[in-house]
């Protein structure tokens, strides 16, 4: 097995509060191999985005990595200083965000913003950086790239802005790109185009991708492996094909039950839903966090936290009942 691009091990993230600390991520572990796409899946509030921010070293104030390591090509980002992180971010690892409408600086042109990344990390001259920015706009398939280069973000549509964000993110050909719900704010048709673009860039640049999403459809389409997260914990971890064919954790089964099955053609097939809501992280008992919403849960589930167990090679689950 080759060395992973990213190895997250035993990461626990805590929010400090006056009443004590709340664990937002608990003992999280996964790896991303070179060129691989790993999806982080789960409902809102399960800690997907926190995981991304922890990897980027961009956790909000009073939230910190309390334990574990986040290794990018062997270098521990959880212990890196601000200077190192600034050098790495946007160069070897970058991130695109959910809402492209607000993620670009409104007072500079698109070209200036892409060029800026190259000037910071590659020390290119303004003219060279701008020329390279044009190449990048071409690479992300924007129509009329030379014209777009001189436009301001508010003159572009959401899909075009997300393409610009992607161009900025891949400007330095990163080892790893983190996409935090990259298409949630976009139309369905644009969504498909953005996925296609990400797939294409991944192949051309050989970069690894972490896709954060709550959409199992997107996972099936784009990811090689998936980490299903619940209440700050990885509850299931498997190759996507296997995960969808034979999900082990009741929560994963619930998530997959929420996807309408287009192929079966049965428009009347009932969609299952997961009852209840994501629990308050501060009020989680000693047992399985999903127990209150789980049809299979019994007293033992509430009493003791299920450990992560290997079900099959590369397929791990944290559930007493699986």
């Amino acid at each position: 097995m080759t060395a992973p691009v990213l190895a997250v091990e035993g990461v626990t993230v805590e929010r400090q509060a006056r009443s004590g600390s709340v664990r937002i991520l608990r003992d999280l572990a996964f790896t991303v191999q070179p060129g691989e796409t790993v999806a982080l899946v789960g409902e809102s509030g399960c800690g997907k985005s926190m995981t991304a921010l922890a990897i980027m070293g961009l956790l909000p104030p009073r939230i910190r990595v309390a334990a574990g390591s986040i290794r990018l090509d062997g270098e521990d980002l959880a212990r890196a200083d601000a200077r190192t992180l600034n050098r790495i971010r946007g160069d070897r690892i970058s991130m695109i965000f959910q809402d492209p409408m607000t993620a670009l600086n409104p007072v500079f042109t698109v070209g200036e913003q892409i060029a800026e990344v190259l000037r910071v990390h590659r020390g290119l001259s303004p003219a060279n950086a701008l020329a390279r920015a044009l190449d990048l706009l071409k690479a992300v398939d924007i129509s009329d790239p030379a014209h777009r280069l001189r436009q301001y973000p508010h003159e572009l549509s959401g899909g075009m802005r997300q393409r610009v964000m992607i161009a900025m993110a891949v400007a330095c050909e990163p080892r790893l790109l983190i996409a935090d719900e990259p298409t949630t704010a976009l139309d369905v048709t644009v969504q498909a185009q953005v996925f296609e673009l990400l797939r294409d860039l991944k192949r051309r640049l050989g970069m690894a991708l972490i896709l954060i999403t709550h959409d199992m459809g997107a996972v099936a389409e784009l990811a090689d492996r998936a980490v299903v997260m619940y209440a700050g914990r990885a509850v299931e971890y498997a190759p996507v094909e296997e995960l969808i064919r034979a999900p082990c954790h009741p929560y994963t089964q619930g998530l997959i039950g929420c996807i309408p099955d287009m192929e079966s053609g049965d428009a009347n097939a009932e969609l299952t839903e997961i009852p209840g809501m994501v629990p308050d992280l501060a009020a989680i008992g000693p047992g399985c966090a999903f127990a209150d919403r789980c049809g299979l849960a019994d007293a033992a589930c509430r009493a003791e936290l299920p450990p992560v167990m290997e079900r099959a090679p590369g397929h791990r689950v944290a559930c007493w009942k699986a």
Partner: protein
Amino acid sequence: MTVRSQGPQSPLAEAWAIFRRNRPALLGLALLVLIVAMTLVGPTLYGVDPLDIVSAPLLPPGDADAPLGTDYLGRDLLAGIISGGRASLAVGLSAALLTMGLGVTVGALAGFYGGWIDRLLMRTTEFFQVLPPLILAMTIVLLFRPSLATVAVSIGLVSWPTPARLTRAEFLRIRELDYVRAARAMGARNRRIIWRLILPNAAPPLIVAATLTIGAAILFEGGLSFLGLGDSNAVSWGLIMGMNRPYIFEAWWATTFPGIVLFATVLAVSLIGDGLNDALNPRQRER
């Protein structure tokens, strides 16, 4: 879909297009240009020394030697107003620059870094805010020799808290926005985030504040000179008004005319400020 315009519109070009449609603001701009032109080329065209005694004292307007009359010493009032503008505008402008420079720096550091830096700077700001500005400015001027420079510095020192608070508020708002987060994810350092991201986006209200500060500073200078705390060797509108104040019942013109010009200047600056406020306000901008 976005409508394709004739080439990209920079935010500045857009702002000017809106400003141009605002008649009062254009009037203010014209008035200010007129007043500035008067103080710049006036002394060459109207070659009377404002300190020379040209005629009898307190001569009413309409005199052949002095079109706007003379003051209590017999000096030409028109000449005084023309050259007085230089001092008033220079002090107003430099005091406003100092005010904004200090205020923006303090506000930016406080708003961006937060924590103890914010607390320290904001307590200092409050300390300045609770002192009556005029008294404080007078004290500062009296501590040094009154001159145009000390007057400008004293105005700057008492006026910076307002822009500091405004800047801090804008920084607090903008530093949490997505594009700042995205820039961090691209590896931007603090200095770059402050200068390239937050400051340009905080600029609209600050530009408006700067404009209004110029008006306030011109008035402030007038007030200090009126009270006799200005530079007594440099003719300014406030100084003329202050000197002629005892004779206001005998010679209304000697205080009224400089007053009108001072008023017109501040009005012009305020109208421009209002126009800029509309032009730079993002909510006024159509997408």
